[in-house]
Structure formats: structure tokens, C-alpha cells
């Protein structure tokens, strides 16, 4: 069996940078932090370039474990976007929040896990990639190691993540037991004649347990309960990264697994996911209504968005999957942008996450307030932002595939969500700043990140046609030409 390392070029670049950075850290000590950040950023850019470079019509695979098809490579870009933004934001923030330099390394490793997860075509690789991603996220969550809440969040994430991994692994085991293989394609071929779930209960149970693992990762009800606590406790930098990247990786892999290994049960998992979608967005939105902490509110909002995105998976089909990819990009931009603002507001031991800390921000930091306003509107799905077209695409997919009711429920949810997003915007623009409000510093890299996300949020909201072309090409390996 020939070893085609080219297939893993982006991953290899990341790994190389990881090792370099570790070396740098070992040699340079504390002073090397910034250098590590820049190095990581370079690595991310290189890996992105490599992903695009290898994007072609051929889809070579590595030992039947990962496949470098357009789908995976496109997904790489999404993950790298999240990682790159997070690193950019981190360049200065690690100092302000006194985060260890290893954060950059761990972000890279997590990204590596995401990339492998997005490309994995074998359940063993899926499991390992997921664990790489998960474990590095546990550590990242706990990385503000002199803050109790960061550690608490890490601990909770760890326990529940382990619990959920158990299910995922059991699911893989059952699939293996039912089919004798870990290869997604082989599972798909074996089950091709199946119709109802109860025709092959073992395989079905395997699918279900597998779903639980992914539902946990992307925060779907009722596997989402860790999300608010972990997102709130984790350093904002990390939250931004994992809310966007990990969610994207989970969805990308989920689509590939469902579509490659279980296409014959599309209606069955579709219905289950549709119900889950309704529960998820409703839960997320309703619970977000009462939040005072902007960060925690965004955590709930990320649950709600997972609910919207999963609609695209549930309705399946070309439009459904394409809409998920588009949504993930848009969500990455607007969500990371929003967390960038939260990051800018905070200080060591003064996170300034309460909504009242944002009061009158327009007078203190107009640019920051405008950016946050934009992200809030985008998250609420207001037109001329990426958030609107993302929703539009998902909902139109739902309508096309006969799930109009789902779109209707989702839109009612979008209205609920508008309330809490607007509340933040309202407080920033209409409120009076506290007398003792701590100063806000927007560092240059953070500013770049904000400008980038903001601009892209608007551009994608106005003229997404080129990106949509890319996406439609990217899903071809999954749904056929």
C-alpha cells in the first residue's frame, strides 16, 4: 500500500508548526509567547493555502482513513478561519489574560483534530480525530489555570465529554459488530438494502450512539447542557474558537458519516434530527432570554444556532448540506467577531461580561460598539448580514425538502432570539456607561480580527454568490455530481 503523504499536507504543516512552536517554547520560555502566536498564524495560513492548492477533482485517500476530497479541504478552510481568527485575537489577549503560551499550540492541535475529523472516512480515524479535538479543547478550556471558573468549566467539559465519548465509542463498536468494518463507505454498502431502523437494530443503535457523540460535540438538545457552563468558563479566546470551529468540525463530519454510511436511513435520522432541531433552537433561545452575562447569552445562542444548522443536516440533500457549510462560515465570522468584542472588553480578573458593562459603549468605543451591533444583528439574522442569508439558505433547503414547518418554527425562534441580541445592542447604544467602567483597549491584531469578521459578515450578506459556487462544488464529493 503506497503512502501518499500529499493527502495530509495541510495536517502535516500544522503538525510541523506545532512541534516548532513547542521547541520555541522550550527554548524561549516566557518571551516566546508572541513569536509562537505569529508562528501559529503562519502555520494556519500555510495550511489554508495547502488546502486550496490540493483542491481538485481527484480525491485521493490516505490508507482508507482520511480522504482529501473537496469537501474535507473546504472544511479545512472553515476550521483554519476559526483558528486563524482565534490566534490573531490571542496575539495580544494571551498577555492581557495571562494565558500560557501553549494555548497557541493547543489551538493548532485542535485544528488538526478538526481537519482530520472533517476528512475522516473511517470510524477509527473519526474517533481518534474527535478525541484529539476534544481533549485539546478540555485543556484549552481549563487554560486560564488560575481562574476557578475556567478550571471548573474544563472539569465539567472533561467529565461530560468522556461520558459522551463512551457513547460514541459504543456506537462505533456496534456498527463494527453489525457490519464488521470501520470504513464508512463499506458500512454504506452493507446497509444499502435497509429501510426501517428496526430492520437492523444493532446498526441502528450504533448510528444512534454515534449521533449522541456528535450531538454532544455540536451541542444539540438534550446533549447540550455542558455548553453554557463551558463557554462561559473558558477564556473568551477559546470559547470563540471552539464555538465556531468545533461546531463546524462536528457538523462536517456528521454530514459525511450520515451521507456516506447511512444514506438509506435518511428519512429516519432526518426526522430525529428535525425534532432535535426544534428542541435545540427553542431551548437555546428561551434560555438565552434571561441571561445577564453577554458571554453566557452567546453560549445559549450558539446552542440555538446549532439548532438552525442541524435543520440543514436533517433535511439533507444538496441544498441542505450546502446550506450547512454556508451557515458554518457565516456563523464562524459573526460569532468569532462577537467573542472578539467580549475579549476586548475583558481584563484579567475583570471579565466585564455583564450586559451593564456594555452600557453606553457607543460613547466609549464607537467602533467596538458598531462592530458588536453588527454581529448581534447578524446573529439575529437581519438582512444585509451574513446571518440572514445563512438562515435563508437553510430555510429554503428545508422548504425544498418538504420541511416548511421546520423553517416556520425556526423563524419564530429567530424572532425570540432577536430580543436578546437587540438587548445587547440597545444597552450599548442607548444605555449610560457606568462611572467606574474599566477602559477598553482594542489592540491592533484584535482590531484586524474585528474588521475582518465585520467586513466579511457584511460582504457575505450582500454578495455571497462566489462563495456559494465554491460550496456547491465542495459538497459534490458527498452527494455526487
Amino acid at each position, binding site marked *: 500500500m503506497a503512502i501518499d503523504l500529499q493527502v495530509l499536507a495541510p495536517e502535516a504543516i500544522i503538525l510541523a508548526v506545532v512541534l516548532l512552536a513547542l521547541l520555541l517554547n522550550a527554548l524561549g520560555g516566557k518571551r516566546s509567547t508572541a513569536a509562537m502566536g505569529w508562528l501559529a498564524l503562519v502555520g494556519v495560513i500555510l495550511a489554508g493555502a495547502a488546502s486550496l492548492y490540493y483542491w481538485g477533482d481527484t480525491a485521493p485517500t490516505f490508507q482508507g482513513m482520511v480522504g482529501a476530497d473537496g469537501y474535507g479541504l473546504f472544511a479545512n478552510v472553515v476550521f483554519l478561519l476559526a483558528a486563524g481568527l482565534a490566534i490573531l485575537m490571542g496575539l495580544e489577549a494571551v498577555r492581557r489574560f495571562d494565558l500560557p503560551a501553549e494555548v497557541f499550540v493547543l489551538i493548532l492541535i485542535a485544528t488538526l483534530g478538526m481537519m482530520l475529523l472533517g476528512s475522516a472516512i473511517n470510524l477509527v480515524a473519526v474517533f481518534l480525530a474527535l478525541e484529539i479535538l476534544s481533549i485539546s479543547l478540555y485543556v484549552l478550556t481549563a487554560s486560564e489555570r488560575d481562574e476557578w471558573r475556567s478550571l471548573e468549566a474544563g*472539569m*465539567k467539559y472533561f*467529565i*461530560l465529554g468522556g*461520558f*459522551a465519548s463512551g*457513547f460514541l465509542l459504543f456506537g462505533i463498536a456496534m456498527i463494527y459488530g453489525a457490519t464488521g468494518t470501520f470504513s464508512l463507505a463499506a458500512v454504506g454498502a452493507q446497509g444499502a438494502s435497509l429501510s*426501517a*431502523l*428496526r430492520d437492523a*437494530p444493532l446498526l*441502528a*443503535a450504533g*448510528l*444512534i*450512539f454515534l*449521533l*449522541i457523540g456528535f*450531538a*454532544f460535540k455540536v451541542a444539540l*438538545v*438534550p*446533549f447540550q*447542557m*455542558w455548553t*453554557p*457552563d463551558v463557554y462561559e468558563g473558558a477564556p473568551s479566546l477559546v470559547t470563540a474558537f471552539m464555538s465556531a470551529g468545533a461546531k463546524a468540525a462536528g457538523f462536517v463530519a456528521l454530514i459525511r458519516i450520515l451521507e456516506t454510511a447511512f444514506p438509506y436511513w435518511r428519512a*429516519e435520522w432526518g*426526522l*430525529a434530527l428535525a425534532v432535535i432541531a426544534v428542541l435545540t433552537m427553542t*431551548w437555546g*433561545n*428561551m*434560555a*438565552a*432570554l*434571561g441571561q445577564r452575562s453577554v458571554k453566557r447569552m452567546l453560549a445559549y445562542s450558539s446552542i440555538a444556532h446549532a439548532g438552525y444548522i442541524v435543520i440543514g443536516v436533517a433535511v439533507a440533500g444538496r441544498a441542505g448540506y450546502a446550506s450547512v457549510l454556508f451557515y458554518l462560515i457565516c456563523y464562524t465570522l459573526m460569532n468569532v467577531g462577537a467573542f472578539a468584542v467580549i475579549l476586548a472588553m475583558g481584563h484579567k480578573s475583570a471579565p466585564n461580561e455583564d450586559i451593564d458593562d456594555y452600557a453606553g459603549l457607543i460613547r466609549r468605543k464607537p467602533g467596538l460598539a458598531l462592530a458588536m451591533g453588527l454581529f448581534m444583528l447578524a446573529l439575529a439574522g437581519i438582512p444585509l448580514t451574513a446571518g440572514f442569508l445563512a438562515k435563508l439558505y437553510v430555510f429554503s433547503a428545508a422548504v425544498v425538502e418538504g420541511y416548511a414547518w421546520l423553517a416556520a418554527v425556526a423563524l419564530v425562534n429567530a424572532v*425570540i432570539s432577536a*430580543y436578546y441580541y437587540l438587548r445587547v445592542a440597545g444597552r450599548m447604544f442607548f444605555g449610560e456607561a457606568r462611572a467606574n467602567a474599566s477602559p477598553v483597549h482594542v489592540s491592533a491584531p484584535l482590531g484586524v480580527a474585528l474588521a475582518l469578521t465585520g467586513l466579511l459578515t457584511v460582504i457575505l450578506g450582500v454578495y455571497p454568490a462566489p462563495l456559494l459556487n465554491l460550496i456547491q462544488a465542495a459538497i459534490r464529493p458527498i452527494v455526487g455530481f
Partner: protein
Amino acid sequence: MLNYPWLVLLFPLVGVIINAFVGRYLGKRGAGILASAMVGLSFVGAVWMFVELLGLEDRVVTRPLFDWISVGDFNVQVKLLIDPLSSVMAVVVSGVSFLIHIYSIGYMAHDERFVRFFAYLNLFVFAMLTLVLAENLLVTYVGWEGVGLCSYLLIGFWFERKSAADAGKKAFLVNRVGDVGFALGLMLMFVTFGSLSMSEVLESTLAVRLMPGVATAIALLLFVGAVGKSAQIPLYVWLPDAMEGPTPVSALIHAATMVTAGVYMVARTHTLFALSPSALTWVAAIGGVTAFFAATIALTQHDLKRVLAYSTISQLGYMFLGVGVGAYAAGIFHLTTHAFFKALLFLGAGSVMHALAGELDIRKMGGLRSKIPVTFWIFLIAALAIAGFPGLAGFFSKDEILWQTFAGGKTFLWALALLTAGLTAFYVFRLVFMVFYGESRVDKKVAAHVHESPRVMTVPMAILAVFSVIGGYIGVPKILGGGNWIEHYLDGSLGWHAPEAAIAETAHASAGTEWALLILSVIVALAGIALAYVFYVRRTDLPSRVAKSLGGLYSLVYNKYKVDELYMAAIVKPLRAIGKFFADSVDGPVVDGIAEGIAALVALMGRGLQALQTGLARNYALGILAGAVLLLVYALVK
């Protein structure tokens, strides 16, 4: 002039514009003269048209001005119609207006909003002439509401006084009720005939046989408008209050011109009314009953102008009685004479007020005959005219109506009208005697300054007095040797469709009967005057004794049958209460409550979900386990 009839409209409009925008630069005299001149020009034009029309064979002239509204099959053209009816009206309106304008220069001389007053008056003339000359009923409606507006503005001219502002609003609203009826009538008319043009409707009514119900409905809806504008039962309540306005306004708008618009409108659309005998009966009945009803109230009031106001309502009732029995010409005849003598009465009252520093209570007058002799004589002439003293204007016109009513077989209404004639003579001479005869009951302070009005006021009055005397001779009935010229002239407008019944009755009634009735009405009038003399000059203690002996009935009449109170309690207050109820108990708590309730419910559910978020990892794990079990069950059953 017939080729440029719009000039008649233009002059007052120019007056409005000039006075509204640059009037304050003209000074009082200038503004007054300008306004009067404009109306004077208008009057000249009207007379000119009238004369020209006389010389024509076909006395119906229409002059289109411009297309107003065209929507699908609904086309309204602004077009002027000059025919005998409108030409007479135009002359009367512009003529009386002209005189009153001049009178106002004196009367309003000391008012700070002098210019505005004349702008309003000009606007009124414009609107009234529009109403009169319009060929299309929707344009009539424009004038109709326009005069209503001016009435509103002029009643509330002294808007600092709450009573004046209230009265203006009341006038507008009560008229609005009628106007909506009018508007609905127009809509039904359009749906029925496909047009609102007089000439087209006229043709249709002559050609088409309608379902009687439709004709009745249209006629009654239009009549609702007339009832509002012409202050008939049940919509008369605004007119007495309208006396809050300056007296020239009362004279012009609330006596001579605007309030007669209803009569004019019924006459204008008489072909339609003629299609529905039941509608006509309603008109006659309401007219007759109103005439009597208002006259009874006039007997008891102490406010000089209010007595005159009720008198106006009563006289308008006569006019409706006339048109209601199909005697359209008689109605218009009475309208004309009434314009003269009622305007004169009001101007006289104004002159009295002028002399007494605005005093209106006749109990605080008396003995003014010598102090303001010109006013006295003029007032007396007007009183005689309205009372139906033989030879004066009111005598001929009122008698024509009485006769036609009798001839039309409406004996009960005739009797009522005859009785009313007596009451009229009584209450009008009650005024004459209480104001000008007997002891002076005038306040000492005021008495010192009593003076005759300036010439600018007395001359117009004198002119009107002349017309009050001779105005009747345009309609002297045949039995008195006259040709009843006006009836023949108006035939050009009103002769289209005289109800067969009325014509038949008239033909059958003998000249003897007519004479008898004539004499009877003269006797009644004279008896009324005599009784008033007894009550208010000879035995001044009688009125209070009679009042006491009548007890409750008197106080009921004195309180105007408490109709205002009734409307207040039955309509205004309940509607406001409903509004209050809607505003306080429905809109906020219920309608908004449901919307807010949904929001609150969502928030509550959110708090419930937050409570599930306990912060304990093992609770969360339980959630995962529960989800796993549920999904597993799903896998087993699906």
C-alpha cells in the same frame, strides 16, 4: 356673465386668499372693504347671471370647469349649473351676504381678529355659492361641508370662550352626522344611477322606474343630510348653541343662507323625492313637527338670539313642510323671504347687543324704543314680516306653504303649521315688547352708554327691511291678483316632476277655500301679536302666572325638552364610556396583554430552562443518558 359663472365663485375666493395672507397689512377698514367688495362683485355677477337667464328660452345653463375625480366608472366633473333655482339662490346668498359683510364692518370694528373674520366670511360665501351652483352633487357636497367648516370656524370665532368653542364643535359634529347620511345617499345614488351629475340623475329619475325602496332610501339618506344642515329634528340641537358666534354670523349663516341649504338640496333633487311618496311624507312630517316644536321652545327662552335661533329652526320646518308636500317653489319662496326678515331680525338683535354692550337676556332690556329708534323700527318690520302680517314678505310665503299643505291633504300638518304661525307671532312680539317697550330693566352701568348703531350697520339693515316688506311680491298668489311669478320662474328647475297628487288636489280646491284659509291665518297671526301685547305690555304678571300654572310642562319646554341632556346621556357619554373601556380595559390589558403575555410566557419558559441548568455536571450527564434512552427507543420503533 353666463359664460363666466366661475367669476362669481372667484371673487370671494380671492377675498379669502388676500385677507388670509396679506390682510393684516390692509388694516381693518381695508380688509373689511375688500371682503365686502368681493362679495359685492359676486352679487353683481349673480344678478347679471339672473338677468341674462331671464332672457333665455332654455333656462338651464351648464358650464364645465375641470375634471375632478375620475376613477373607473366614477367620474366627477366640476361643472356649474345655472338655472332658475340656483340663480335665485345665488342672488339671495350673495345679496344678503353683501349686506351682512357691510354690517360686520361696523359690528366687528373692535375685534382683534377682524381680518380673520372677513376671511372666514368670504370663504363662507365661496362655499355657499359652490353649494348652490354645483352641477354635480359631490361638488354640492364640497360646498356643503365647506359651509359647515365656516360655520364651525365662525361659531367658535371667539374661541377663548369655552362655550363658543364647544358650540362650534357641536355644530360641526351634528352636521357631520347628517353629512355622512348625505354621503351615503350619494353613494347609493351612484350605485343606482351610475352618476352624481344632476342632469344625468334627473334624466335617470325621469326615465327609470326604480324599486320604490331604493328611491326612498336615497331620498331619506339625502334628507338626513338636510336635517343636519337645516337643523331639523332630531339634529337641530347645534343651531341654538351656534348663537355663540358673532351676530352677523348668526344672521348670515344660521338664519339666511347655510341652514337653508337643506331645503335647497331637497328642492334640487326633488325628482328623486318625487319618486318616493313615503320619503316626501317624512320630509313634510319632520318639517311640520319641527316647526311647532321649535316654536314652543322659542316661547320660553330669555336669550334674544336663542329665541331667534329656535325661530329659525321653526321657519326651516315650514320650508321642509313646503317641499315635503311637493310645493318646492313655495319652500324656496319662503326660503327667500325668510332670508330677508330673519337676517334682519338677527342684525337687529345685533344692533341691540351693540347698544347694550353685548347683553342678550331680554329680561335685562326693555324700553329701548326711544333710545335706539332706528333699530326698533327695523326690528318691528322684520317682526311683522315673520309674524305673517298681511302684505309683508312672510305673509305671502308662509301662506303659500299653508295653503299647499292643506291642498295636499295633510290636514293635521296644516293645523300644526297654523298653530305654529300663531306661536311665531306671539314669541316674536314677545321679543319686540320685552326689548323695546315697558320699563327699562337695563343695568345702570350699561344704560348710560346705550347708543344707536353707526350707519354702516343701520343702512344694510334698512335695505333688508325694504326687502322684508316687498320681498313677498315676487310670489303673490293668484287669488290676490298676483301671478305667483316665482313659482313660474322656478318651474324651469322644479317643474320636472311635480307629484301628480299635489297637482290634482290643488286643482280641485276652490278659490273660496283658499280665501278662507288666508283670512284664518291672518287672524291667527294678529291674535298672536295681540296676546303678546297683553302678556308683555298690559299684564306683565301674566307670564309668570301662566308658567307657574303649567308647572312641569313649562319647565320642560323652558329646558328645551332636555334634548341636549338626552343626547348627552344616550349617545355622547356612552360612546365616551365605551372608548374609555376600550382604552383602559381592552386595549392594554387584553389585546396588548395577549401579545405581552406570549412574550412573558416565553421568558417564563426560558427561566424554567435556566433552572434546569443547575451547574452540576452529573445532572447534565443525566440529560445525555435520557436522550440516549429516548433515541434508542426511537431506533427500536422506527
